[in-house]
């Protein structure tokens, strides 16, 4: 083997920083083009605040997804967990203030994800099937709660004007900082993250290294619950009141975070996955913002764009896989 300097892999590492700069510069260039296309309304201080603000909740949910999806636990019940955890966070918040809001969301997120982990691992059926079943159950629990509240002549928990700061600028954006630090440490610097990545990449080898794959997957689900819970608490603070939904409509909630995971994965060779998630969610938020500014109707054409983006990003990320397989 040739010396280190001549090794193409080592040279590639030298290029990584340059690639990062190029991606960010490319993104900036796209933003500038959008800025002019929208008549100078895109890169304003207020609009940038809106873009980042709208990216906060999806970022926390996507960070959670990173832990479950990486270990192969495709959980479609996450949207329904967000609804339940948001409502529980609201109930606890009204009793105990911001501490209750955060801890309530956290507790519900962790508990429900842990329950999912037990169900997925004990039943051994494909996680996406089990996830759909759990989504139906969680949606129904939400509906029972909603109906009970109505029978009592009450409303589904509503924060009114209380506890709304966490979901607004600048506090919601500030939450990204400890969130990023925590997710980076957990995913990249602890055995939980390492084992989750190992299990998702090669189960046989991971087992041979003495790692218990079920334990690794379960812990991944629990950590996923932490971020889902925090995202739910911020969500409750942002919306004030979140009405439970049925008919598996919560499943759709997952698509935007899923797109962000795909974007992050497609940039995996350039950026750390957890940073890729932030770039992905902000890019998506910026995209929807730009489309709105351009007058593209939401609910139809914006979703068409998201669909095309999901396919395009998957194509890009799978191209890398294809090279590996061949």
């Amino acid at each position: 083997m040739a010396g280190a300097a001549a090794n193409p892999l080592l040279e590639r590492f030298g290029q990584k920083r340059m690639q990062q700069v190029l991606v960010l510069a490319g993104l900036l260039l796209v933003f500038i083009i959008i800025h002019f296309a929208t008549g100078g309304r895109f890169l304003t201080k207020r609009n940038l605040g809106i873009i980042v603000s709208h990216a906060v909740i999806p970022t926390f949910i996507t960070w959670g997804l990173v832990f479950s999806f990486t270990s192969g636990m495709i959980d479609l019940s996450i949207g329904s967990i967000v609804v339940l955890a948001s409502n529980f966070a609201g109930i606890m918040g009204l009793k105990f203030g911001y501490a209750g809001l955060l801890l309530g969301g956290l507790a519900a997120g962790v508990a429900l994800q842990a329950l999912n982990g037990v169900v997925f691992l004990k039943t051994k059926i494909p996680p996406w099937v089990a996830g759909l079943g759990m989504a139906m159950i969680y949606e129904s629990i939400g509906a029972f709660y909603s109906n009970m509240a109505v029978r009592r002549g009450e409303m589904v928990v509503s924060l009114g004007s209380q506890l709304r700061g966490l979901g607004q600028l600048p506090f919601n954006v500030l939450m990204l900082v400890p969130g990023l630090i925590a997710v980076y440490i957990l995913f990249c610097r602890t055995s939980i993250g390492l084992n989750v990545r190992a299990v998702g990449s090669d189960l046989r080898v991971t087992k041979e290294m003495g790692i218990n794959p079920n334990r690794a997957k379960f812990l991944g689900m629990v950590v996923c619950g932490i971020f889902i819970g925090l995202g739910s608490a911020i969500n409750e603070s942002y919306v004030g009141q979140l009405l439970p939904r049925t008919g598996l409509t919560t499943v759709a909630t997952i698509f935007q975070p899923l797109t962000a995971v795909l974007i992050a994965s497609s940039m995996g060779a350039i950026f750390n996955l957890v940073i890729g998630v932030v770039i992905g969610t902000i890019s998506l938020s910026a995209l929807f913002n730009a489309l709105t500014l351009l007058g593209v109707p939401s609910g139809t054409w914006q979703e068409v764009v998201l669909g095309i983006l999901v396919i395009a990003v998957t194509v890009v990320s799978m191209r890398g896989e294809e090279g590996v397989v061949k």
Partner: protein
Amino acid sequence: MSRENACVLKVEGLCKNFGPTRAVADVSLEFRAGEVHGLIGENGSGKSTLMGMVAGIHSRDKGRMFKGNQLYDPESPAHANEQGISMVVQELGLVDGLTVAENIFLGKTEQFAQRGVINLRKMRAAAEEAFAAWGITPVPLDALARSLTVEEKKLVELVRALSVDPDVLILDEITAAFSHNNRALLYDLLVKLRDQGKLILFVSHNLPEILELCDRITVLKDGEKVTTIAAEGATEDQLKRLMVGREVKETYFYTPAQTTGSKPVLTVDGISVDGMLHNVSFELRRGEVLGVGGLSDSGIHELGRVLFGLSKPDQGKVILTETGEVIDSLRKAIDRGIAYVPKDRDTEALMVRATIEDNLCLPSTDSFVGRLGFLSPRKRKAFAREQLAAFEIKASGIRQAVNQLSGGNRQKVSLASWLSRPNRILILDSPTRGVDVGITANIYKLIAEVKKQGIGILLISDELPELIGCSDRILIMKNGAVAKVFERAEGFGEHSIVQVMI
């Protein structure tokens, strides 16, 4: 090199079955400290399973093991590591999605953790130190395992096995992945370890290597121990006879090429791939075996991928000489009768979770279409059964999954799937890697037969004797470029070829 040191590892009456397949049957052995103990046998003879039980990968159905005087009962490879036993498995044993440093210490990261947070810098430094301490060719520590070559992956696995400072190191077919330079490094390392009083259990099909390195050799056949003999005084023919149960005299089946007056069948015109190949040009003639050899960074394996359309060259062309058509895609290569048997059988050549039938039939799917345009299950089954018998693949039947086969039998499936279809050009990358001596001889015979049909064969190999034994010409590559082409008429001198390689 006979030594009479203390028994460090003993296995008694070990048995292991995989469903109806008897893998290891009542094997008892004693291994000494400070010896390199070779394990040989045909594919499916139980070598890897036996070693897997010692390394804690497989549980055993019966029998006992002792390490020193203590009963040894590993629950997992990690547990075996704690007891001072580590193994480099025959299959690729890295997690593709983790970096080199993470792979080396996966499952042992606590040593770098403080309050649960792993110190990546310390882990990386320890990995770097491990490569340096054992004099192993460095591999980029931050690279994901999926970006490494097979050889680099094996180097990482070796470092991982050594990182636990084992008393017993098991190496299963590791040299099959290594080129000349890294083999030399490994041989030196094994001598060093033996001198330190370690036991090395060395599984290989390369008999000259076994005779050169080992103190004692155990022969297995059909899961049973045949014998254990001292390497000193043993001969290759004796080992072959013990392994196969009959005389295996012929090894290479060289027949002169029928190339007089024939046009080249493939023209490689100045191909370059960034950092791997540099302006490579040559012609492959009808009915010849063109051997391709070189050290690990020479680009020989990348060359096969480019010719088959798996990698796109940055410059240059691969031309089907007879028609002038440029081969620029995998589909075109297959449609025009180019076959490729890659080196990395598990990830590149085979669908390991699919059945033998599916694997054998896939490249020849068009030939199984019935009258109404549907695939004929009858034709597929007949074809698969025919190939199973022709290549002597040891399996319970064509419906058995490939990942349940031994390494050598997987290689036979890989070869059979391509060699059984009409080809114009055959690219074989390390075709005898992990294949036993009997089947190796069959493969060489097959190469000679294919050559007689006028098919041009590019034989890429890390085995110099194989290149010398089978080729009409040998193209030696160095640093991604063609260094020299040796003609058989001029005589192939091993020494002169190695001189060009290095």
